[in-house]
C-alpha cells in the first residue's frame, strides 16, 4: 500500500512540476539512445524516481526495441514500421502523432546486457501489476536470477498483494532473498532459520549457496577463518596428491617433479645413447630413471625431486580445512542447522515417495504375476509365454487406439478386449499344447517357451521393431504432487486401483463362487477333486484362460506408462517368476506378498544406490536366491499333502 501511496504522491508532484516523460528523457538523450550496461543504471534510477505512471510502459517498449528517436529534433517516440518509414506514437499518451519517412528516425536497439538491466528495473513495477500473469512472470524472473536489489521492491509489493497464491509465493521468495542478501545479520539469521522448514529445491539451493566453501591450506588455520570442517590429507575427501598440489598452489611447498617431467628431462639430456652415465637401455624402470635424474639435475639446473618423506613432512606441518565463503560463523551455523533440518524433512518425504513408487511397482508386478501364480497353482505349470500375453494385451490396446481415436473410449474398450483376446489365446494354448503335456512340467515350460519366441517374432513381423505408443487419456496425464519431493503420476495410481480391483475380484471368484471352489479343490488335490465330480480339464482350461486374460489387462496397464514393444513381455517375465517363487504358488495373498516384497526391495535398493538400476536388479536377484534358502516354498507356502504335489 505504501508504494502505491508513494507513487500517487510522486504522480501529483510530477504533475505539479508538469515534467513530462519526454522532458525527462531529453535531460540526457545520449543515455537513452546509446546506453551501455554500466551507465544505464543511472538513467533508470532517474526514471523510476520520477514516479511517472507511463515509465513502466516506456521501459517495456524500450526493452522490446520499439522506441525510436527522430533525427530532426532528437525526440523519442514509440514507432511501428509501416511502409518504408514508421508510425510514431507519443511516449506519454500513446496517441499517434504522425508518420516518418525512411531514414528520418533511428530505431533504438539496446544490447542484451542493457535489456537485462532494464528488465530488472521493470520487475518492481511488474510486482504490483494488476495483471496476475505479469506478477507471476516477475516472480519467475526473480527466482531464476536473484539479486540483492530485488529484495526491497519485493517487500514493498507484499502489502498490496490480494491473490493468496501469489502472496504466498512472494513471501517465500522474500524469505529466500532475505536469507541470501539481507544486510542485517539478525534478520538474515531469522530468514535462514525459517528456511529449515522449507523442503523445496530452491530453499536448499539458497542454503547450500550460503554454505559454499572451498578447501584451503596454510601453516595454521587463521583466526578469522570460518572453518566448515578440517581436512585430513590422505583421506578420501582429500587424497594425498591433491593435498600436496594445494600446498604447491598456495606457494607453501615446491612442486613435485612428475614422472613425465623426469622422462622429458632425461630425453632432453640424451646424448650418444646415454643420459649422464646411464645407458638408455637401462632406463626401463622408475628407480633407474630417478637415479639418472638425480645425477643430471644439479648440473642442468633442474629442480630436485621431492621424496615421499618430504611430501609427508610438508603435509604434516600444514593445516587443511574447508573454508566458508561466508565469514560470519553465526550465519553459517544457522544455515547448517537449517539445512540439516531441511534434509531430514526431505529424506522423510523421499522415503514416503519411495514407498509410493514401491507400491506402484508392486501393483504392476502383482498384475503381471497373478495369472502366472494361479495357473502354476492349479496345473503346476510355468507359462513362459505369459510375458507374450502381456505384450498381446498391450498391442490390442494399441490397435484399438488406432481405430478409436478418443483415448478414454478406446481405453474402456481396450481393457475387456485385451482380456478377451488373451483369454482366447490362453484357452487355445491350453487345449492345443499344455493339456498334452500333463505331468511333465519341465517340458511344458520349454514348449511354452517355444510359443513365446514364436509369438514375439510374429509381433515383431507385424508391428515392426519400433516402440508403439499407447497414449493415456488426458485425465490420467500429470501427477498428484504433494510437494517438490513427494508426488506420483495419476497413471500409477490408476494401475494401483486396477490391481486392487483385480485382487478383490480374484478373492471373490476364488472364495465365493462355485468356480473358485472347484479351482481350489483342483489346486489342493486334482485326483480327489475329480472323484468328487469336478472336471479338472475344464477347470484347468478356465484358470489358464483367466490367468492369461489378466495378463492381457496388465499389458494394457503397463503399455500406458511404458512403450509397447514386442520384447516388453520378457522385461517383466523374470520378475513375475520371482514374484511367484517368493510369494508361493496357488494363493492370491502369496502373490500379493511376493509382489510387495519385490517392489519394495527393488525400490529400496535403488534408493541406496540411486545411480544404478542394473545393480539394484542384480542385488535383488541375489537376495531372492538367498531368500529361497529360508523359505523354499515361498512366503505363503501350501501346507500338508498339497505341498508335495
Amino acid at each position: 500500500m505504501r508504494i502505491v501511496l508513494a507513487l500517487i504522491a510522486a504522480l501529483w508532484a510530477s504533475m505539479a512540476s508538469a515534467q513530462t516523460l519526454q522532458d525527462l528523457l531529453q535531460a540526457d538523450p545520449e543515455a537513452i539512445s546509446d546506453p551501455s550496461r554500466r551507465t544505464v543504471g543511472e538513467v533508470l534510477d532517474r526514471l523510476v524516481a520520477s514516479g511517472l505512471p507511463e515509465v513502466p510502459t516506456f521501459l517495456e517498449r524500450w526493452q522490446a526495441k520499439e522506441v525510436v528517436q527522430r533525427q530532426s529534433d532528437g525526440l523519442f517516440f514509440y514507432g511501428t514500421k509501416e511502409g518504408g518509414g514508421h508510425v510514431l506514437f507519443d511516449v506519454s499518451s500513446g496517441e499517434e502523432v504522425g508518420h516518418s519517412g525512411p531514414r528520418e528516425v533511428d530505431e533504438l536497439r539496446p544490447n542484451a546486457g542493457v535489456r537485462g538491466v532494464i528488465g530488472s528495473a521493470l520487475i518492481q513495477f511488474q510486482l504490483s501489476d494488476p495483471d496476475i500473469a505479469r506478477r507471476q512472470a516477475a516472480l519467475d524472473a526473480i527466482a531464476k536470477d536473484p539479486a540483492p536489489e530485488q529484495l526491497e521492491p519485493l517487500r514493498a509489493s507484499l502489502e498490496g498483494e490480494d491473490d493468496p497464491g501469489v502472496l504466498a509465493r512472494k513471501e517465500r521468495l522474500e524469505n529466500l532473498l532475505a536469507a541470501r542478501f539481507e544486510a542485517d545479520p539478525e534478520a538474515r539469521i531469522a530468514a535462514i532459520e525459517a528456511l529449515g522448514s522449507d523442503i523445496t529445491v530452491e530453499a536448499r539451493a539458497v542454503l547450500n549457496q550460503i554454505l559454499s566453501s572451498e578447501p584451503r591450506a596454510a601453516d595454521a588455520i587463521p583466526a578469522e577463518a570460518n572453518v566448515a570442517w578440517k581436512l585430513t590429507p590422505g583421506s578420501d575427501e582429500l587424497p594425498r596428491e591433491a593435498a600436496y598440489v594445494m600446498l604447491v598452489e598456495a606457494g607453501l611447498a615446491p612442486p613435485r617433479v612428475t614422472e613425465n617431467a623426469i622422462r622429458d628431462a632425461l630425453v632432453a639430456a640424451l646424448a650418444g645413447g646415454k643420459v649422464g652415465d646411464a645407458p638408455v637401455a637401462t632406463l626401463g624402470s622408475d628407480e633407474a630413471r630417478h637415479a639418472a635424474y638425480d645425477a643430471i639435475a644439479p648440473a642442468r639446473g633442474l629442480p630436485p625431486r621431492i621424496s615421499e618423506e618430504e611430501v609427508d613432512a610438508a603435509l604434516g606441518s600444514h593445516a587443511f580445512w574447508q573454508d566458508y565463503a561466508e565469514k560470519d560463523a553465526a550465519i553459517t551455523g544457522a544455515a547448517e542447522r537449517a539445512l540439516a533440518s531441511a534434509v531430514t524433512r526431505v529424506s522423510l518425504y523421499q522415503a514416503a515417495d519411495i514407498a509410493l513408487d514401491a507400491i506402484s511397482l508392486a501393483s504392476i508386478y502383482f498384475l503381471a504375476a497373478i495369472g502366472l501364480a494361479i495357473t502354476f497353482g492349479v496345473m503346476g505349470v510355468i507359462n513362459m509365454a505369459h510375458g507374450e500375453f502381456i505384450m498381446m494385451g498391450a498391442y490390442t490396446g494399441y490397435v484399438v487406439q488406432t481405430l478409436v481415436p478418443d483415448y478414454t473410449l478406446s481405453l474402456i474398450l481396450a481393457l475387456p478386449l485385451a482380456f478377451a483376446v488373451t483369454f482366447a489365446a490362453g484357452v487355445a494354448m491350453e487345449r492345443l499344447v499344455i493339456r498334452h503335456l500333463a505331468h511333465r512340467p519341465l517340458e511344458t515350460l520349454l514348449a511354452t517357451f517355444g510359443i513365446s519366441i514364436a509369438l514375439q517374432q510374429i509381433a515383431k513381423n507385424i508391428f515392426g521393431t519400433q516402440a508403439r505408443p499407447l497414449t493415456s487419456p488426458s485425465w490420467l496425464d500429470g501427477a498428484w504432487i504433494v510437494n517438490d519431493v513427494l508426488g506420483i503420476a495419476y497413471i500409477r495410481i490408476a494401475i494401483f486401483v486396477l490391481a486392487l480391483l483385480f485382487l478383490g475380484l480374484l478373492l471373490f471368484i476364488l472364495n465365493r463362487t462355485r468356480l473358485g471352489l472347484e479351482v481350489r479343490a483342483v489346486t489342493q488335490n486334482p485326483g480327489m477333486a475329480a472323484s468328487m465330480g469336478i472336471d479338472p480339464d475344464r477347470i484347468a482350461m478356465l484358470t489358464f484362460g483367466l490367468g492369461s486374460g489378466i495378463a492381457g489387462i496388465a499389458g494394457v496397464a503397463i503399455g500406458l506408462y511404458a512403450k509397447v514393444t514386442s520384447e516388453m513381455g520378457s522385461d517383466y517375465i523374470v520378475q513375475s517368476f520371482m514374484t511367484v517363487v517368493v510369494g508361493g504358488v496357488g494363493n492370491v495373498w502369496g502373490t500379493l506378498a511376493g509382489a510387495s516384497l519385490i517392489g519394495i526391495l527393488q525400490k529400496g535398493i535403488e534408493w541406496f544406490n540411486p545411480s544404478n538400476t542394473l545393480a539394484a536388479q542384480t542385488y535383488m536377484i541375489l537376495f531372492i536366491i538367498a531368500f529361497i534358502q529360508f523359505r523354499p516354498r515361498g512366503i505363503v507356502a501350501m501346507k500338508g499333502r498339497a505341498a508335495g504335489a
Partner: protein
Amino acid sequence: MTTAPVPALRRRPILADNPSVLWALLVLAIVTLGVTVLAEGAGAGVISTSFVKTLGKTLCLCLAAVAMDVVWGYCGILSLGHMAFFGIGGYAVGQWLMTARTYDIVAQSLAGQPLPPTPRELDQAVATQIFGVVGSDHFPWIWAFSHSLPLQLLMVVLVPGLLAGVFGWLAFRSRVTGVYLSILTQGMTLALSLWLFQNDSGLRGNNGLSGLQNIPGLEGWGQDRISIAFFWASALALGLGYLLFAWLTSGRRGSVIRAIRDDEARVRFLGYGVEGTKLLVFTLTAVVAAIAGALYYPQAGIINPGEVAPLASIYLAVWVAIGGRGRLYGAALGAALVSLMSSWFTGGGVPDIPLGIYTVQWTDWWTVLLGLAFVAVTLLAPKGLGGLFDLMPRAPSRRQGDWGPDDGAWRNEEGEP
C-alpha cells in the same frame, strides 16, 4: 517261494556298454579329418576359413549341449544357466587374450620412444587402451591374473566351478527342485548378465571383450591355420567331454543319476546321497560348459553380456530337446543341426517364399519356425531327433538274467536303457 539265483552283475567296459559312444567318436573323427582336408588352411580350400570357424564354434556348442544333456536329460535338473558358465569361460580366456595382445601392440608403439618404457607406463597405456571405452585408466581387481595364461585358464575352470558349486549347494540343500530350480537358475543368469552390463563391473560393460580372434604369440600363423587349430582343439574337447560324460552316466552312478531324474525322493530313501550326486553333476557340467566357452569365443572374436543373457541358456535347452534328451549324441546332433540351420536361415542362405501378397522372408520368420518346431518336437516326438536311431534294427539285448523281482512292474519298458 523260490527265487532263481541272480547271476552276479559284472561291470563291463563302458564302450561295450554304450556302443553309441564309439560311433559318435568315429563320426566326430571323420568330420574333423574331412573338414581339415577340405579347408583353406590345410588343404583343398573348398571350405572357407570363416566356415571352418563356424564349424569349430558349432563343436563347442555341441560340447555345451552334451553337458546340458547330462544335467537335464540324465539328472533331471533343467538348468537355465549353463550358457552363463559358457560365457564365464569365454570372459576368462578373453581377459588374457585381450591383455596380452594389447601389451604387444602398446609395447610396439612405445618402442619408438627415446627411453624404454617402464612397467608402470606400459600398464597404464594398456589399461587406457582397454578400459578407455568405459572411462577408466587402470586395471580393475577382476583382471588381477589377466597377464598370465595359466592362471587365467585356471579361472576358466575355477570361477564357474565355484559359482555352480555354491549355487548348487545352496539350491539342492534346501530341496529346491523342478520348475522352482529352473526359475532360480534363470534368476542367477539374469543377475550375472545384468552385472556384466554395468560399466563398473570391470569387464567393459556393454562393450564386452573384442579382438579375441588374434592369438598373441601366433601372429605368424594367419587366421586360416588358427581356425584349423581351434577346430581341432574343439573337436578334441568334444571327444574328451563326450567320453567323460559317457563314463559318468554309465554303471551304477549313471543309474543313480537317472533315478534322481525319475524319482528323487525314492532314491533318497534308498540311501543314496542325492544332493552330492546332483551337485557333482551340476558343477562338472558347468565346468565343461565353461571350457567349451573358452574355446568358442576365440573363434567368435567377441563376447558381450548379451551372450550370457537368460535367452541363450533357454536356447541351449531347446537344442538338447530337439536333438533328444537322455542320449549324448542326440544333444550334440541337436546343437549342431539347429545352430547351423539357424545361421543358414538368418544369414539369408534360404530363398524367400513369395506368397503373392506377402513374401516370407526367412530372416524374419526363422524364429517363428524354430519356436513352432520346438513345440511340435516337445508334443509329438519327445525323444527328439535322436529317437530316429531307435528305429534302426538292433541286436537283441545282451542283458543277463531277470529284469527284477516284481512281476507287476513294467519291467521290460523300464529295463530299456
